[in-house]
C-alpha cells in the first residue's frame, strides 16, 4: 500500500479542472484524493514541500521511440521510461517502428510487459497502420486494440498510398483508434536532408520544401472528410500544415495535431550555426523562422493539441557521420519542459496553455486516462521547478543515447518529482545517474 502524500504549498496548474493557484494535493491509495487550499496534514502522510514550485498533472507524450524490441543499443523501454519520468512525463506513447514492427499482439504484449517490469512511466503502445509498416496491407486493428494499443501509426514513413490511407481511416473507425501520421511526400523530399531555404543553399545540403508536408496533410484531411476517421498529425512543422489543421477543425473534422519542442524552438539557421552537427538532423527538419512562428501560434490558439517530443535516440554509429548519411532524430524527454518554458518567457505561450499541451491536450487527442488532477483519478503528478537552471550534459542523462542539440546549453526549468499512480518514481538528486 502506497503512502499518503501531501504535496503542500505549490502552485497547482491543472487546466483540465480550471485550477491555477496555491493548493495542497493529497494522494492516497494511488489516486488524487483531494486538491484544496487549506488542509490538515494527517500524521501518517509524507509531506512534499512544493513552495515556489509548480504542481501539474504528469505530462503525456504522444510520440516517443523506445527502440525495444530490436535496437536496445539505442534505448530500452526501461531507459526510455526512466528518461520520461526524469522529464516529468508519466505516460508515453511508444511508436511501432521497432524491429520487428509492432503490428501484432505479441510485440504489443512485450512492450507492455517490459514497461510493467520497469515500473516507471506508463507506456502506451501504438500499433502499425499497415503490416510491417510497409504501406501495403492493413494491420489487424482489432487485435492491436485488444492487446493494448491506443493509436495507429506507420511513423518513420508516410502512408504513400492514398487508397490504403482511405481504408485505414475507414477501418479504424470500428475501433475508435486515431491514426497518427508522419506526413511527407517522398518524391518532393527526394534526397533532402534539411529544410529547403537560404540555410540549405548556403550549406550546399539538399533541401526538403515545406510543401512536402503540406500536400500530405491536405490529402489526409480530404480523406478524413471522405471517411469520418480520426486523424492526428504527428510532428507538425510547417505554416501550411498548421493552416490546414486550423481549417479542418473549423469545419468540425476530427483532426488533431502535435508539435515538438525542437520545432517550436529551433530553425534551419540553427543547423547552419551548428556547423553540420547531426544533432540538428531530424525528420521533419527544422524549418524557417516563419514556420516556427506559425507552429507557436498554432499551439497557442489550440490548433495544435499537444507538445510531443518525438524522442528518437540514436547511437554515435548513426550520428558521428556525414550530415547526408546521419540518422534522423534527437532525444527529447529530458529537455522538453525547459525548452518549452522558454516559449512562455518569450511571450509566445501562456503558462496554462503550456501545461495543457503537455497534459490534458494529449490525453484528449488519444482518449487516454490522466492529464488532470481531478479527485479520484490515478495520481500521475509532476512537481516542477520553473526557475532551476541546469546545463545539459548528455553523459548525465537517463536516455541511453546522447543525440541532443541542447548539449552544453544552459536551460531553465526542471522536473523535481514525478509520481505515477501515487508512487514517487523520480526525485531529482535522489537517484545517481
Amino acid at each position, binding site marked *: 500500500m502506497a503512502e499518503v502524500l501531501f504535496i503542500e504549498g505549490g502552485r497547482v496548474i491543472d487546466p483540465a479542472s480550471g485550477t491555477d493557484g496555491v493548493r495542497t494535493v493529497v494522494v492516497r491509495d494511488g489516486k488524487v484524493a483531494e486538491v484544496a487550499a487549506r488542509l490538515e496534514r494527517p500524521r501518517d502522510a509524507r509531506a512534499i514541500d512544493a513552495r515556489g514550485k509548480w504542481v501539474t498533472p504528469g505530462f503525456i507524450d504522444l510520440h516517443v521511440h523506445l527502440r525495444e524490441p530490436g535496437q536496445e543499443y539505442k534505448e530500452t523501454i526501461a531507459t526510455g521510461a526512466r528518461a520520461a519520468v526524469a522529464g516529468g512525463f508519466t505516460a508515453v506513447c511508444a511508436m511501432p517502428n521497432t524491429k520487428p514492427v509492432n503490428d501484432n499482439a505479441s510485440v504489443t504484449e512485450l512492450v507492455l510487459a517490459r514497461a510493467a517490469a520497469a515500473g516507471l512511466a506508463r507506456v502506451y503502445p501504438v500499433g502499425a497502420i499497415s503490416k510491417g509498416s510497409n504501406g501495403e496491407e492493413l494491420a489487424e486493428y482489432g487485435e492491436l486494440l485488444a492487446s493494448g494499443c491506443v493509436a495507429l501509426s506507420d511513423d518513420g514513413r508516410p502512408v504513400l498510398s492514398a487508397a490504403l490511407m482511405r481504408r485505414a481511416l475507414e477501418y479504424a473507425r470500428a475501433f475508435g483508434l486515431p491514426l497518427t501520421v508522419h506526413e511527407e511526400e517522398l518524391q518532393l523530399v527526394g534526397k533532402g536532408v534539411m529544410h529547403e531555404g*537560404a540555410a540549405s*543553399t*548556403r*550549406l*550546399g545540403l*539538399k533541401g526538403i520544401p515545406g510543401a512536402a508536408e503540406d500536400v500530405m496533410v491536405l490529402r489526409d484531411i480530404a480523406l478524413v472528410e471522405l471517411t469520418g476517421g480520426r486523424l492526428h498529425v504527428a510532428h507538425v512543422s510547417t505554416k501550411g500544415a498548421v493552416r490546414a489543421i486550423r481549417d479542418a477543425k473549423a469545419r468540425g473534422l476530427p483532426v488533431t495535431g502535435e508539435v515538438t519542442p525542437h520545432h517550436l524552438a529551433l530553425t534551419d539557421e540553427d543547423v547552419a550555426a551548428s556547423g*553540420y552537427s547531426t544533432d540538428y538532423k531530424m525528420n521533419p527538419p527544422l524549418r524557417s523562422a516563419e514556420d516556427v512562428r506559425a507552429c507557436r501560434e498554432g499551439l497557442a490558439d489550440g490548433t495544435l493539441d499537444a507538445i510531443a517530443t518525438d524522442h528518437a535516440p540514436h547511437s554515435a554509429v548513426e550520428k558521428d*557521420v556525414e*550530415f547526408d548519411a546521419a540518422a534522423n532524430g534527437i532525444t527529447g524527454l529530458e529537455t522538453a519542459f525547459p525548452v518549452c518554458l522558454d516559449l512562455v518567457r518569450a511571450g509566445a505561450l501562456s503558462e496554462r496553455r503550456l501545461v495543457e499541451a503537455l497534459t490534458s491536450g494529449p490525453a484528449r487527442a488519444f482518449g487516454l486516462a490522466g492529464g488532470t488532477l481531478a479527485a479520484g483519478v490515478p495520481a500521475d503528478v509532476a512537481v516542477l521547478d520553473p526557475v532551476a537552471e541546469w546545463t545539459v550534459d548528455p553523459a548525465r542523462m537517463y536516455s541511453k543515447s546522447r543525440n541532443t542539440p541542447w548539449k552544453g546549453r544552459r536551460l531553465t526549468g526542471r522536473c523535481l518529482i514525478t509520481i505515477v499512480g501515487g508512487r514517487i518514481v523520480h526525485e531529482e538528486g535522489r537517484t545517481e545517474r
Partner: protein
Amino acid sequence: MIGRHKHCISLAEYSREEILEVLDLAVSMKEVLQRPIKKVPSLRGKSVVNLFFEASTRTRSSFEIAAKVLSADALNWTASASSVTKGETLVDTARNLEAMRPDVLVIRHSAGGAPRLVAEHVGCSVVSAGDGAHEHPSQGLLDCFTLREKLGTLEGKTIAIVGDISHSRVARSDLHAMTKLGARVRLCGPPTMIPAGIEALGATVRTQLREAVEGADAVVMLRIQHERIGDPLIPGTREYSKLWGLNAKKAAEWLRPECVILHPGPINRGVELSPEVADGPQSVILDQVQNGVAVRMAILYLLAGGNPADAGEAKA
C-alpha cells in the same frame, strides 16, 4: 594559418583580408611557377595527403603539383569505394590518416560538410577540395586571382555566374569571395537550377542569359553536370545550350569586348560554351588552370606553416 583559420573549408567564413592574404601570396607563388626550375624548399619535410572520395584528376593534380613545387611530400590516398564498402566511416578513415601525421589533409567528398567533420577528428589542417554542393574554396580563390590579374580589381565589377547554381560548390565559393572583394554578382540559370534563398547570400538572380551577361566585366560559365542532377531540372542539353549557353554570336552581341570568360572545367563543349568561345580571345580558362596551382601553393604554404626565410626566397 590563414587569418584566424586553421583550415580552408569555407570562404563564407573568410574575411576580405583573409582572402587577400592568400591572393597576395599567390602572386609570388606564380613567379616560382614561371622559373626554369620550379622547386623551392619552403615546405621541405612537410606532408600533404590528398584524400579524394570523388574522382577529380584536375583538382587533385593541381594540389599535388602545388605540394611538390614547395618540396612537400604529397601522398594521394584515393578513397575508392574500397574503404567505404568495407564499412569504414569517414571518421575512421580520417583517424587512420591522422596516424600518418600529415601537416595538411586535402579532402574532396560528395557530402556537404564532410571536410568539417574530418577537421573535428584530426589534428592537422584540412583543406576542402570540394564538398557536395557546399563549397570549393580553392576554386573560388583561383577565380578571384584570375579576375584580379585580368581586371586589376574586383571592386565595383559586375560578374555573372551562369549555370546549375543549385549543384555548384564553385558558384557558392565564387559568390562569397567575389562579393567580399567588392564585386556585384548576378546568378543566372533556369529557375529549376536556382536554389531557394540564394539572394540572401548577396547576389541578384536572372533567368535570361542576356540580362545576366550584358554589361558584365566577367562571366563564369558553370559545367552542367548530368551525373549530379538527380531529378529532371531541364528538358535536355539542346534547349539548355540554346538558352543558357554562350556561342560566338551571343558573345559578340551581348558581351562587352573586354569581358573575360571563366569556366571551372572540364567544359562540355557545345553545351555551356561553343568551342570558338572556349578557345577565343576572351577566354581565360587556361590561365585559371595555372593560377590554380599558385593559389593552392599559397594555401598549403600558409596552413603548413612554411619557413618564413624560405618564403622570402619564394618571394625573391
